[in-house]
């Protein structure tokens, strides 16, 4: 089967009032393999929402192509395989979750006799059966978000495009969604996850893409993105800061605490640091490897 998401040199330029334009996407090429949780990261205005909008045919690319399961995104039939949760989902407030989900089940082409069970299954997956008959307008933000996730799950789509799925959820709700996404992945679903919660992406995603100004700046497993800049952290006894000035040329970051010094250096310069500390007569207390978090990698890449 063709890959769930494939974009090739995707560009989008918005026309602004007057003769001005704004380039939202600039030659974005990504491939999302089947059965993975794919994290799509980028700062505000990087082009994440524009990409999602192109994938769902809300807007059209200026150049390049995008396909879902090998079919052009302008083919409505391909969206039968897709479930979508928009960022801060808005629904008709007068509808009850069961009514909303029934409506979406019908739009998915689920036969009338199977609608009820599809709705019940989706509500159960997000633990919303208790609120099934409460109008959406009376639900809290977190519960509305859960209804949105249930709506995306209706019809058991192979690909889920989720824009900030844990936004507005409390820690228990976030945990529940995390477990649900892992469960969905185990069932073979492909999940395209756009999120600002980097710890969440780090724990969940198999592959991460970081975009900046509409272009891809990093792509791969989180470990691969993080590993590029691992640091060595060295703890020593306290020392006069003046005598440490000579270490600056190594690019060592120095932090002075009341009872110890902390030196942070790139691995390739660690040997030189150890020699310098030995010459200064500083006693080593501890040495540890500092793995860059995805958040730090993101800040480095997207800054």
């Amino acid at each position, binding site marked *: 089967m063709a890959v769930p998401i494939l974009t090739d040199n995707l560009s989008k330029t918005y026309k602004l009032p007057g003769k001005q334009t704004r380039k939202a996407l600039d030659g974005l090429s990504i491939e999302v393999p089947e059965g993975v949780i794919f994290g799509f990261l980028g700062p505000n205005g990087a082009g994440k929402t524009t990409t999602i*909008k192109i994938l*769902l*045919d*809300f*807007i*059209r690319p200026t150049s390049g192509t995008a396909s879902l399961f090998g079919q052009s995104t302008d083919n*409505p*039939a*391909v*969206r*039968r395989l*897709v479930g*979508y949760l*928009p960022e*801060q*989902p*808005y*629904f*008709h407030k*007068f*509808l009850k979750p069961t009514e909303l989900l029934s*409506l*979406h089940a*019908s*739009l*998915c*082409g689920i036969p009338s006799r199977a609608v009820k069970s599809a709705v019940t299954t989706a509500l159960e997956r997000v633990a919303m059966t208790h609120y099934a008959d409460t109008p959406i307008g009376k639900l809290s933000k977190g519960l509305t978000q859960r209804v*949105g996730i249930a*709506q995306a799950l209706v019809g058991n789509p192979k690909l889920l*495009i989720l824009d900030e799925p844990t936004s507005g959820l409390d820690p228990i709700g976030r945990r529940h969604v995390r477990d649900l996404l892992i469960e969905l992945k185990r069932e073979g679903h492909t999940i395209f996850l756009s999120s600002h919660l980097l710890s969440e992406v780090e724990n969940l995603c198999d592959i991460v893409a970081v975009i900046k100004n509409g272009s891809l700046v990093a792509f791969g497993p989180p470990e691969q993105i993080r590993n590029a800049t691992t640091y060595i952290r060295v703890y020593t006894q306290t020392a006069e800061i003046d005598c440490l000035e000579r270490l600056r040329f190594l690019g060592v970051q120095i932090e002075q605490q009341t009872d110890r010094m902390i030196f942070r250096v790139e691995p390739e310069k660690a040997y030189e640091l150890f020699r310098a500390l030995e010459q200064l007569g500083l006693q080593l207390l501890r040495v540890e490897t500092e793995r860059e978090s995805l958040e730090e990698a993101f800040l480095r890449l997207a800054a």
Partner: protein
Amino acid sequence: MKSVWVIARLSILENSRKQVFHVLCLIMLAVIAGSTLLSIFTEGVKIKMLKDLCMTCILFAGAVLSIGLASTGIPNDIDSRVVYPILARPIARWHYVFGKFLGTAATVALAIAALSVVFCALIYCHQGHIDSFLATAALFAMLEAAVISAVAITLSTFTSTAVAALLSFMVYLFGTIKIGYLSKVLEKSPNSIAKTCGTVLYHVLPNLECFNLKAALVHGNSVPISYLLLVFSYGVCYTAFAVGAAALIFRGREV
């Protein structure tokens, strides 16, 4: 096609919750109250005036509801973002536009039907028997409302709510002030631009006056079936053309 009905049903539910329906209740109460003032006239004049009043109200309410609901439907869905989960489903854009139109037209038709039933009962109270032609006149009022709704929906696919409502109201005004007369006036103008405008208006704008069977109802004149069929065909074709144009425009629109 199932998705069209699903969207139409949603649109009816949505429209029926809007406050424009309070206007309907006010209109009904105003007419019922106004009918008591007609007792100063002779019996024949009173019945004619009552029928005139009822039909005017039905046509006016139909136009107001059509413009109010159709011009706000799609822009409001886009502004409130409720359109995204719907368009993310395996439906074509024309399904959405057609569903919104059907939902709006059905809502207005239900409102006209409700008004017609009330007014029928009112006329029965004064006249002693039901005038069956009122049903025909109400049916053509529904058709007129469908045409206005189609035009308003077309305009709303590429303009804002306010502009769509304003333009739809202008179309309604031009359409009801005997467009043929208007175009003739413009064609006699020495200004070539005015002449061209007259021709364009004549051919593009709907002739809403032809749906108005008030005069026949009030004076008890018979209307040939052939004329009714012609007007019905005209209404259906114009509506289909306008909704088709709306679907085509919305297909290319970025949301």
